[in-house]
C-alpha cells in the first residue's frame, strides 16, 4: 500500500482536527448536560423530596407534570439551540478555511 500523498494545508493538520473535534464535542456535551441534569435530577428529586413532587398542580402531581408534559418543550429547546449553533459552527469553519486558502 503506497503512502497517501502528504497534505500540508491547514485542513489536514493535526491542530485543525483537534480544534474541530474539541469545539463540536464541547457543543454536544453542553447540550447533553442540559438535558441530563433534568433526566438525572428528576429521580433524585423524587427520591429526596417525595412530598414536594407529590404537590398537585391542576390535578397533575408536580413530578407527573414535569416528566409527562414539560419535558418535551425542554427537549425541543435544546435541540433547536444545538442545531442553530452547529450550523453556525460549520459555516465559521468553512469560512476560516476558505479565507486561509485565499491568503496563501
Amino acid at each position, binding site marked *: *500500500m503506497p503512502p497517501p500523498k502528504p497534505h500540508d494545508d491547514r485542513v489536514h493538520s493535526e491542530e485543525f482536527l483537534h480544534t474541530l473535534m474539541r469545539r*463540536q464535542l464541547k457543543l454536544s456535551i453542553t447540550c447533553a448536560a442540559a438535558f441530563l441534569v433534568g433526566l438525572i435530577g428528576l429521580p433524585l428529586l423524587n427520591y429526596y423530596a417525595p412530598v414536594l413532587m407529590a404537590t398537585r398542580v*391542576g*390535578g397533575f402531581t408536580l413530578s*407527573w407534570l414535569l416528566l409527562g408534559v414539560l419535558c*418535551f418543550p425542554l427537549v425541543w429547546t435544546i435541540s433547536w439551540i444545538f*442545531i442553530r449553533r452547529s450550523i453556525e459552527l*460549520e459555516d465559521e469553519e468553512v469560512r476560516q478555511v476558505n479565507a486561509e486558502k485565499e491568503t496563501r
Partner: protein
Amino acid sequence: MNAMISLAFLNGVDPWIFTFSLVTVVVTVWMGFRSAKTSKTASDFFVAGRSVSVGWNASAISGEYLSAASFMGVAGMVMAVGYDALWYPVCYACGYLFLLLFIAGPLRRFGAYTIPDFAEGRYDSPLFRKIAVCFVLFIGFFYTMPQMKGAGTTLAYIFPGMPYWGGVVLVGAVITLNVALGGMKGITLVQAVQYWIKMFAISVPVFVLMSVYGFYGAHLGANDGRMEKLAPQATAITQTVERHPLVEKAPADTPWISPFGPLTTKAAKAAGLSPEEARPYSLVYTYSLIIALVCGTAGLPHILVRFYTNPDGVAAKKTTMWVMILIGIFYVFPPVLGVLGRNLLPELYAATGSKGTDKVVLELPRVIGGLWGSILSGITCAGAFAAFMSTFSGLLVSMTGAMAHDVYGRILKPNATEAERMRVFKLSAVLIGGVAILLGTQVEKLQINFMVGQAFAIAASSYFPLLFMSVWWRGMTMAGAASGMLGGGLPALACMTVVNLSDMGNLDLKSFWVAHPLLRILAEQPAIWAVPLAIGLMIVVSKLTVARVPADIRMKMLVLHAPEKLGLKQEYIQEHQAGMGH
C-alpha cells in the same frame, strides 16, 4: 366448511373497526408495491429519498420510529403501573436528542448507511462487519416480538373469537410475504403517511374522550387515594370526573401515581422488603431504564438509515428538528389514554395477555358507545396496524438485508449471481419472518413496552458504545471495538433472555429472584452495568492493541467531523481507493 370458519370469526366483529383496519392494511400494501415498482435497488431508494422535502422526510423518520410500543404499549403500561412507565415515552424522545447530539452528524458525513457499513469503513475490516452484523439480528428479533404481540392483541380485539397466536401468524405472514415479494421497502411516502395515520389515530380519540369525560389533569386528580379511604358517597361530592370502581388486581392510587411504584419496586417487593427498604432498588431500576432507553435509540438498526435521505447537512439538521417536534407531540398522547383507561375501563386490570391493559388504546374509545364509539375505536385500530406494520416491515427489511447481503453474500457464497442473491433474499425474508412469528406467539404474557425496552437495552450495550467511541475517540482499534460490543451486548442479551424465560414460566427462578432482588433488577435492566462494561472493555483492549489503530485515522476523523462543504469525503474516497488498489 371454510365459509363456516370465516363466519365464526366474523361473529361479534364490529363492522366499523373491521373496515378501518382492512383499509389501512390494503392501502399500506398497495402503496408499498406501487412505490417498489419505481425504486428497485437500495441506492435507488436513497437517491429517491434525496428529492423529498424536509416536511415529508421528517414525517417518514417519525413514522418509522413510532412502533407498536409507542402506540399501544406506552398507554397500556401507564395504565398498568402508572408514573414509572412515563420514563418510556420521555426517554424515547430524549434518546433521539442524544443521537442528534453525538452520532447522527458524524455518521452522515462518513456516508455509512448502516451500522455494519460504518463498522467496516471505520476499521477497514470486513471481518468486523461480520461480527457487527449479528447484533442487527439480535436487536431485530427482540424488537419484532413486541410488534407481534401488538398484532396478536389487535386482531384478538377485532375478532373476539380469534386466539392470540392466530393474529400473530396472520399479520406476520402478510407482512413477511409482502417483504419477500419486494413491497414495503423503506419507502419515504409510505412511512410519512403512516406517521400521520398514527398521529391522527392517537390524538382524535384523546380529544373526544377528554371533551366527554374530563381533562387529563382532572382524571389524574381523581387518582388521589380518596377512593380507598372514604365511603363512596363521600367521594361523589368531591369527584370531578366519573370513575369506575377499580378491580382487585389494580394497583392502588398512591403507588400508581407516585414515582417508584409497581414497576420499579416489583423485585424488592417480591423479596419481602419494606417500602422504605425498596426505594434504593427502585432508584437503581429507574436509572438503568433511563440509560437503556436514551443510549439505545442510537443503536437501533433501522433508525440511522433515514438520516441519509436528505440532500445536505443543513436539511438533515432541519429535518431532525421537525422529527423531535413530531415525535414529542405524539408522546404526550399515549399516557393520557393510559390515565383515562384507569378511570374508565378498569376491567382490563383483571385480564392478562392479549386481553389485558396493552389493548387499552384500542378499546377505550368504545366507552363512548354507539356509532361514534365504534368509529373512534376503528381509528385507533387503524393506527395500531400502521404502527406494527411499518415497524415490523422496516425491521424485516433490515434483518433480511443483513442475512442475505452479509451472511450469504459475503460469508457463505461471495461469488453468487444476481438471481441467486434475489432467491436468497426471499428465502431469508421467509425464514426470518417465520422465526419472528414463532417468537411472537410465545410472548403473550409480556408487556409490549417492556419488550421494546429490552431491545433498547441490547442496542445500548452493544451498538451505542461502538458508535459513540468510534466517532469521538481516535485511539479505538478493531479489537477494542469488537470486544466491547460483544462483552457488553452478549451478557445483556443473556440476562434478558433468562428474565423472559422465567417470566413466561419456562424457567423456574422465582425463589432465586426472591432471594436476590438486586440481581433480578440488574438482569431485567442491564444497561446500568452493561454500557460502562462495554466502554471500559473498549478502552482497555484498544490500549493493549494500540499498534493496530488504522493508519489513516486522522483522515477518517476529518471526514467524520469536518463540515461537508470542505469536500473531504470525496478526497478520502479517492485516496482510499488508490491506496487499497481497487
